[in-house]
């Protein structure tokens, strides 16, 4: 935690740059929502969902993704740390390298994205005609989403212990997964949705619990109880990720000298 504060302080030595970067990331991610608005200016629904509903799905996935990115997005820089030898330095400290890596160069600009996603979510909630007794699912799904995305990231990091030269493989799942869940999964092909449900359980970030909050039938006809499986999926994936990380650490080869 204190590591993070120190990094913010280091970045705060250039206050203008810090403010610009924060605003920049707010604006750039704002373009995502502009795309959604443009699509809806041509059509009334997307994958069977209205504009506020799509914004709701975008907002929940966006907040999960942005918070996970803010806290643990650095974990996928593992291969850089391994190559430059800084990973060795982390291993001689009494704190897990996972935590050290997560807060390394922690910067304030990462709040920009979270703020943007949260804004979209709040706008969506005010315009959404949904059963309010189901709102309890929203904080739960965001939390599970954070755990799921962090777990995918950790898996991506763990893969880099073996494939030091291929950090991009992990990006396909982390950033790719983030993009995937921005739209209702019903716009994608059935096989992709099944893969995202059962293999890399990203559908539980916002899609399945979102269907519950919006009280919609599953366009793919998957069972109703899947909607409550978010915490189970999050826990399972987190365990897999933790195991992979430990296995990777034992296999770590360091660099020369």
């Amino acid at each position, binding site marked *: 935690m*204190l*590591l993070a504060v*120190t990094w913010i*302080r*280091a970045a705060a030595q250039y206050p203008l740059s810090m403010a610009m970067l924060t605003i920049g990331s707010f604006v750039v991610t704002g373009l995502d929502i502009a795309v959604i608005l443009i699509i809806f200016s041509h059509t009334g629904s997307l994958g069977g969902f209205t504009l506020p509903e799509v914004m709701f799905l975008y907002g929940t996935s966006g907040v999960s993704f942005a918070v996970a990115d803010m806290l643990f997005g650095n974990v996928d820089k593992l291969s850089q740390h391994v190559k430059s*030898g*800084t990973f*060795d*330095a982390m*291993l*001689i*400290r*009494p*704190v*897990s390298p996972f935590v050290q890596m997560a807060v390394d160069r922690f910067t304030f600009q990462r709040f920009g994205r979270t703020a943007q996603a949260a804004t979209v979510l709040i706008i969506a909630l005010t315009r959404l005609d949904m059963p309010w007794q189901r709102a309890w699912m929203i904080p739960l799904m965001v939390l599970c989403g954070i755990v799921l995305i962090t777990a995918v990231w950790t898996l991506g990091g763990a893969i880099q212990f073996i494939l030091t030269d291929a950090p991009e493989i992990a990006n396909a799942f982390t950033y790719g997964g983030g993009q995937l869940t921005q739209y209702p999964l019903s716009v994608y092909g059935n096989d992709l949705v099944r893969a995202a449900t059962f293999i890399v359980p990203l559908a539980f970030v916002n899609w399945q619990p979102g269907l519950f909050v919006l009280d919609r039938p599953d366009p793919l006809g998957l069972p109703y109880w899947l909607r409550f499986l978010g915490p189970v999926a999050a826990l399972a994936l987190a365990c897999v990720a933790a195991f992979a990380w430990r296995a990777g650490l*034992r*296999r*770590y*080869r*360091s660099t*020369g*000298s």
Partner: protein
Amino acid sequence: MIELDGVGRSFTVRHKTGWLRRGTRLVHAVRDLSFEVAAGEFVGYLGPNGAGKSTTIKMLTGILTPTSGRIQVAGLDPSRRRTALARRIGVVFGQRTTLWWDLPLKDSFTLIRHLYKVDPVDHRKRLAELCDVLDLGGFLDKPVRQLSLGQRMRGDIAAALLHDPPVLVLDEPTIGLDVVSKAAVRGFLRGLNAERGTTVLLTTHDLGDIERLCRRVMLIDHGSLAFDGTVEQLKATAPDETSIEDVVTRLYTRPVQ
């Protein structure tokens, strides 16, 4: 303090054998290495490049997991209890810093205090001592990247000792230093060992380090121990040679049994 029993570490190395075919080869960096270092000893660890010195150091600090054998450092198995061991051991890598490149030395020390959870009063006292003995006062406010090699090395040594560990392991602490800086580092290490009783193990290519500091010398070659004894005994292995350089050259170049 340090015990190794039949320790080995091998790496599988991939190499090209054809256009697309890759062969794998098992390389033994260290094989069947056994030695003991008692509390309060000052031991030099010699060996030609690629002999397995750094691999040994990395196994002692828990960075690498040995493929065979058993290690105990300060009563702990390094690879299993790495974070617990970190509180009882100080590590310095001469070739690369363990400090944070962009932070002032002072901030690095504060971070280390939090990482190791050192009591603020103890920390201040210890830092004042180290600043005094290692003469750090002049560059505490400078970012680490702006320090000269000699200043950085003294900073690194101070950082490794802030939590007052009973064991200090140094991998080439005098590499690239001028005679004055070398003398400062050597004087400090000698004092540390004599006054605080800290156990010191250092690797080096500088035989001046060995002659001036180490009561005991271990020599590793092709991954196994080739000599273990006092500096006098080392010289006695080749009575007709006049300088320690010639003695060691003879040991390095003799045919492998």
